[in-house]
């Protein structure tokens, strides 16, 4: 450890370019962290795929009654489980990752460097959306290849818009959940306790054909059903492409605004005293799933 003299090259980057470089590196680092934590990758990407295979095996791939019309089982589940994987990649993962890294003091370190807070959070959000895109594409792709799911090129624009609105919404809600969770052990519990029941009444795990109106209402208010319906309608063979579900998208935007507001008000970079997980393993991160 010698010669601490600085050999400095002047920084020729403009501030904008520096932040852009930082953002790109942040997203890349977040992606690496995701893939290097296999248990998280399994729950986010593997588990919904397993559910697709099981549901098609149980119900067969014949047309079933859904609120969208008579669909082949796989046509329904490739879309709805694609949405579920996307919500899990953003909402659940961001809430767990951010709280865990807050407990570990990673966020505190970031706060002591010139990395702007928005760059760090945007890196986490964009990485979540990137992983969601991978998970959803894989789900729909396997549906097409293995189960004859029908997707037309003309349907893509509405599917992409629904996907972006949905993942941006759930990523923001993930940051908001991290903001209100005191510790990393609370985050997965809350994330799963909110998203799993919702998945049952949001046309995700079970096709809802004419459910009771109170069930409909709850589904319509919370963001998972709007995301699922907007995406499934966009790729439905009965819709005229491009099928933009504007009312559903507005609900998603509304939740994005609420999430952003909570995150801005409550997000903390300091670990809660006594919450340190240092030295403990990360294997049980999804234990509540």
């Amino acid at each position, binding site marked *: 450890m010698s010669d601490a003299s600085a050999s400095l090259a002047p920084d020729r980057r403009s501030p904008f370019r520096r932040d852009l470089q930082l953002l790109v590196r942040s997203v890349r680092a977040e992606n690496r962290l995701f893939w290097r934590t296999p248990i998280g990758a399994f729950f986010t990407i593997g588990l919904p795929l397993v559910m697709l295979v099981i549901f098609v095996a149980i119900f067969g791939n014949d047309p079933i009654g859904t609120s969208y019309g008579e669909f082949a089982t796989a046509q329904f589940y490739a879309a709805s489980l694609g949405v579920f994987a996307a919500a899990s990649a953003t909402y659940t993962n961001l809430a767990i990752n951010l709280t865990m890294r807050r407990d570990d003091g990673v966020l505190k370190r970031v706060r002591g460097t*010139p*990395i702007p807070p928005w760059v760090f959070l945007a890196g986490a959000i964009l990485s979540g959306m990137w992983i969601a895109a991978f998970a959803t594409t894989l789900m729909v792709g396997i549906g097409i290849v293995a189960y004859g799911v029908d997707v037309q090129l003309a349907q893509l624009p509405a599917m992409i818009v629904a996907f972006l609105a949905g993942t941006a919404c759930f990523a923001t809600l993930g940051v908001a959940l991290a903001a209100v969770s005191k510790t990393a052990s609370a985050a997965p519990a809350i994330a799963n306790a909110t998203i799993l029941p919702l998945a049952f009444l949001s046309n995700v795990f079970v096709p809802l054909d004419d459910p009771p109106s109170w069930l409909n209402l709850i589904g319509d208010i919370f963001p998972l059903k709007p995301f699922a319906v907007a995406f499934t309608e966009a790729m439905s063979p009965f819709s005229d492409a491009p099928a933009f579900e504007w009312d559903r998208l507005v609900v998603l935007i509304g939740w994005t605004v609420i999430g952003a507001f909570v995150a801005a008000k409550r997000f903390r970079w*300091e670990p809660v005293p006594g919450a340190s997980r240092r030295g403990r393993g990360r294997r049980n991160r999804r234990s509540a799933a």
Partner: protein
Amino acid sequence: MAIEVEDLSKSYGDLRAVDGVSFSVDPGEVFAILGPNGAGKSTTVEILEGHRRRDGGRVTVLGVDPTEGGRAFRNRIGIVLQEAGVDKELTVRETLDLYSTAYTRRRSIDEVIEMVELADKLDERISRLSGGQQRRVDLALGVIGTPDVLFLDEPTTGFDPAARRRSWELVRDLADNGTTIVLTTHYLEEAEELADHLIVMAGGTIVAAGTPESLRDQAGEATIIRFALPSVDASLAGLLDPLHGDASGRDRRLEISTTKPTADLAHITGWALQHGIELDGLSVASVTLEDVYLRLVGADS
């Protein structure tokens, strides 16, 4: 002045964690903050870093108020904190690359990795490094932006003695090149070795300030004579009364702090010979910084 602190105070509820602390640090000097746990060291340093808001007093670091310095301020400081974690599934190179991008005065990864002697671990994930090696990654992240002020929070905890010596060399080199260094430590040896000036904190206040030498001088020219006394019939007054120094003791272990060691030692050994007693573990030593320190913070803490 690189750092000026005047009448700083900070409370958590009823607890006055920092209570009227003032000091200043010159550019390029190594400044140590010593004290037991709960003395207020970390709170003080975290206020200087901009991590925490103060309740009262004035603080300037590099000419700005740390709470308002923002990004430009953080571009000029480096922080090596015990409780600041890293993402352990990234490699050393990936981590250094990510953080270095944020600074305008970046040291190259090669240079930094040489400084902390981790060149052979560059592509290893941080989770696979030993505790000491992970601390060196912390150190590397602290200096990668070529800071004007470097905060080191117990930087060598968990190092083996050789690694500790080499880290001290690095700190000295940084200081020689103009980096101001604020160091908290509970290793007295570390403060004595590195610090140009130091303060000792206890209970949120400064109980001593100065150079390591001046602190040692506060004990006067005292020498400490220590020994254990076997149970004897003779009156202890005959032993203790003629002494020049102050005696203190527990059980049968006695400690005499004296400015006339020759005379007192002659009296003690004379008394022992006269009573045919062997004094176990008899030693004569000059006061160390540790003796002064323990007296200042109260030996019980």
